[in-house]
């Protein structure tokens, strides 16, 4: 079923190396201190093999593990106006952007893709905490709108992986306006009767939590993820309340009724396939790793040639 026109075959390197420390083959777990060999760590989706601590994971790494055969097509995100406020703190905003682009190798803090999980076509969006704290500015808003529009036009569910410190302060009020903007995007999905599943990952805070991350049909969180509007430090500083153990962590939110599930990263894919297929009334999927959808496209597609958002991708289904 050739339902998509362009494939992205993730460079094998991106699966086995972490961009931040290319020369260092070992990573120390910030939770238990164990030294972890890179191959072992990335093979385990950046979850500590010793203590199950869930470390950060880039959208590319996540999608490579999520989609069948690690194959997906990037959905093009309309470029917003750069530096709309001419913002300058100790650095100019464009300089901060350039530094973030250089250190992450990504253009911005969200990646949108279309592909299959367990032979089930979906649209997915993933926020990149390593890019300026995953902060929500115009680009992230545009990405979520593009994801919702693609999901609606192709009649596919949307799975969104959130990770953000909150608003992109350098975009000021326009960052705040992403709360209503992204809410409009989620409204479009709901009106089209399409499932919208949010996977809340560490950390998901501020305006992101108070908009698209809390409007899912189903909320799944990764273990121990910090999920909140006002962070624990702000609360302690402003009102001097002492905070209980595990406050604002995924398990705590589950207890307080804000989440449906807390699911370890290693089990997420199967769970998402199962939930999506049930919501769509599809028969059970064959579980486990699946090869890329046939027919294969050229393996050399190293640089993604993004699908135009207006092009109906599911035309041949």
């Amino acid at each position: 079923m050739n339902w998509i026109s362009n494939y992205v075959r993730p460079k094998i390197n991106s699966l086995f190396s972490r961009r931040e420390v290319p020369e260092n083959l070992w990573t120390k777990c910030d939770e238990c201190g164990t030294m972890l060999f890179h191959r072992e760590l990335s093979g385990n989706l950046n979850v500590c093999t010793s203590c199950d601590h869930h470390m950060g994971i880039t959208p590319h790494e996540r999608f490579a593990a999520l989609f069948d055969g690690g194959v997906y097509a990037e959905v093009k995100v309309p470029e917003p106006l750069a530096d709309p406020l001419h913002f300058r703190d100790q650095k100019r905003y464009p300089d901060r952007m350039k530094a973030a682009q250089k250190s992450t190798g990504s253009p911005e803090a969200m990646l949108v893709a279309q592909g299959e999980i367990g032979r089930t076509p979906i649209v997915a969006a993933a926020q990149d905490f390593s890019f300026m704290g995953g902060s929500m500015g115009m680009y992230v808003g545009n990405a979520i709108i593009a994801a919702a529009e693609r999901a609606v036009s192709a009649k596919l569910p949307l799975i969104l992986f959130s990770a953000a410190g909150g608003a992109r302060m350098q975009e000021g009020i326009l960052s705040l306006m992403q709360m209503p903007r992204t809410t409009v995007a989620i409204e479009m999905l709901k009106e089209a009767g399409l499932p919208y599943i949010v996977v809340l990952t560490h950390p998901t805070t501020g305006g992101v939590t108070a908009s698209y991350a809390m409007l899912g049909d189903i909320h799944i969180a990764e273990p121990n993820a910090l999920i909140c509007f006002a962070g624990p430090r702000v609360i302690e500083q402003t009102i001097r309340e002492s905070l209980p153990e595990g406050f604002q962590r995924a398990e705590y939110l589950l207890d307080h009724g804000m989440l449906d599930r807390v699911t370890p990263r290693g089990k997420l894919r199967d769970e998402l396939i199962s939930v999506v297929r049930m919501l769509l009334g599809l028969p059970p999927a064959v579980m486990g790793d699946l090869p890329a959808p046939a027919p294969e496209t050229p393996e050399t597609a190293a640089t993604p040639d993004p699908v135009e958002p207006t092009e109906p991708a599911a035309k041949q289904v």
Partner: protein
Amino acid sequence: MTHYLEFEKPLAEIEGKAEELRAMARANPEMDVEKEAAALDSKAATLLGDLYKTLDPWRKCQVARHPDRPHCKDYIEALFSEYTPLAGDRNFADDHAVMGGLARLGDRPVMVIGHEKGHDTKTRIERNFGMARPEGYRKAIRLMDIADRFNIPVVTLVDTPGAYPGKGAEERGQSEAIARATEKCLQIGVPLVSVIIGEGGSGGAVAFATANRVAMLEHSIYSVISPEGCASILWKDAEKMREAAEALRLTAQDLSRLGVIDRIIPEPRGGAQRDRRTAIATVGEAIGDFLDKLEKKSRKALIRDRREKFLSMGEKGLAA
């Protein structure tokens, strides 16, 4: 007694001198000070006009937070008749930081909802300084639902430092409550008009201000974060709030240029706190004007226009 802001000190001195002269004359009827006092009055009036013509963003923040500025309760009492407060979120509590209920603007029934900060120590504590908890947003959602069902326009008055950073508020899901309130604003098929009357603080403001028309008082502010908060994060120094206020573009004038708000409502000379009655009346006229126009639109058009307005926001930047 007038509360003078820090930058109003020179003004306080002149007005104080005039007041002193007049007090002296009252004690010594043979003294003739009126000419001198009148000269001071006119000097003060000129200075006041000048000060407020060129308020920098940080001064605007101070004016927007001025304790004598009319608050939600003052607007509701002065502008609306038959105000019937409706309380509670039907789940947990009634949040006193959020006022709301049925009322008439002229003859027209409206649902009015707003943040109330309180005016003295007792009421400020009662109102939690205008910082809503989840119950406040959920009450607003309930009232918007009623308005939607009975085809009553909604008017929101925004004046909040932001959501309440408290343990209970977090436990009871304030993120979800804010998200749902914003969603409700986008769903209702009745006119929704919002006025930022003082501080439009972050998500707590958005939850009420995702409206068909958003107006700001001339010296009010609307921002993703307080200048103090922004300074401590980006400058690592909370004292850099002047710079942060500048950079954030949080004034009504900048937000109008950015296309985030639809109208700037002028304030009396020296700010709304110096002539509350005029300020309130001007806001009332603006709301009436907006509603007159919006009421001609169909439910569908109101929803569609509201969504398109927010979807296209930010396209033009400051250059526009």
